[in-house]
């Protein structure tokens, strides 16, 4: 879980880096990039499904954050603001991708070797990541973001609401729907008893 980097309260060290960036010190922003690169990249990867797109989205997120640093409200947590930029960018990319009717499952699968534990381990890890990707493909863009923030970043409902610009009750409702869809996708994947045998999915699964 990416908790150590994202769950802290407003960090005075980061506030200092932000101030320095505002005064034109690029090295200060580089420290922020270093600190949050994993968190942002992972979110982008879970949202988009390939390392190429995740890399591009993560880099663009930091570029956008850098450009908008003067507008950043230091009363907010930097990580929440940054992940909000990343989420919005990924959702935009997914919308554009949908114009070409390409599903996340149709994307080529050829990466994950960056921190792999040797060939066999990499293969197992790859299978697992593929399974996660397949599960997440059962969700709408916003629901997927909510699930990723909840389970990999340990975000509270309030924090998810802030990132996704939703109300707390909307987040609850989306997470409820997303969990049902995930459970159903899991059953499909593992050949288990169908959770909704009579009615089918309560929520469209082919929406990516």
């Amino acid at each position, binding site marked *: *879980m*990416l908790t150590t980097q994202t769950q802290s309260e407003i960090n005075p060290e980061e506030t200092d880096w932000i101030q320095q960036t505002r005064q*034109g010190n*690029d090295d200060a922003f*580089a420290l922020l*990039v*270093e600190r949050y*690169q*994993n968190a942002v*990249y*992972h979110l982008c*990867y*879970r949202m988009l499904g390939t*390392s190429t797109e*995740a*890399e591009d989205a*993560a*880099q663009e997120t*930091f*570029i956008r954050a*850098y*450009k908008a640093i003067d507008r950043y409200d230091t009363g907010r947590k930097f990580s929440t603001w940054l992940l909000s930029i990343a989420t919005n960018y990924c959702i935009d990319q997914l919308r554009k991708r949908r114009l070409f009717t390409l599903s996340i499952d149709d994307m080529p699968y050829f990466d*994950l070797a*960056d*921190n792999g534990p040797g060939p066999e381990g990499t293969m197992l*890890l790859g299978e*697992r*990541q593929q*399974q*996660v990707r397949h*599960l997440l493909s059962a969700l709408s863009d916003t629901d997927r973001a909510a*699930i990723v923030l909840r*389970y*990999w970043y340990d975000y509270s409902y309030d924090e998810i609401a802030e990132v996704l610009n939703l109300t707390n009750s909307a987040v609850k409702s989306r*997470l*409820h729907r997303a*969990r*049902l869809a*995930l*459970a159903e996708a*899991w*059953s499909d994947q593992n050949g*288990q*008893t*169908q*959770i*909704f*045998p009579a009615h089918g999915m309560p929520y469209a699964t082919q929406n990516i």
Partner: protein
Amino acid sequence: MPHKTFEAWIFEDDELEEQDEKILRQHLQECDQCYALKKTWPKVETFLITTPPIMPAAGFLNRWQERLESQRKQRGERQTLALLAVSGGGAGAALMLFAFALLLHFQIFPQTLLGTIAQVVDWLLFLDVAGEILLSLARTLPVAIPFPVWMGFFALTGAGGILWLKSFRKLAQVQGFARWA
């Protein structure tokens, strides 16, 4: 009790109260759908939580810095082009106004002189229909258009000039994009 409540209880992160737990257990004995969900969901949740995060390839920061530099360069080029366009546009507009003012000025000269100069101007400007149009405009506009409209025209032209000056200054100013220049 609505079915959604039971699902929400199954998804609940915190422990349920004893009474609710009892109601849920009873419901699970009657409802296959919720029973399947109760069996499946913890596996899904554990699977998600225990799947390791994906990290970017080494050198992410360097790649980001290169990208930032490249975008700055592109921005600089765009700004230079915009500056040229604003300058060119301003110069063009000023020339047009100058030509128009000249034509208006010729209107008040004696007819014979006006005829000669108008022909020269006509020949110099376009040698074609454009000159004719400008001349006819020059002859008719001062009379046809009331004075307040002329005032409005010149006020707008002046405002356009000020706007151009401000755009030029903003584009040429270094402090405005210090981090981006």
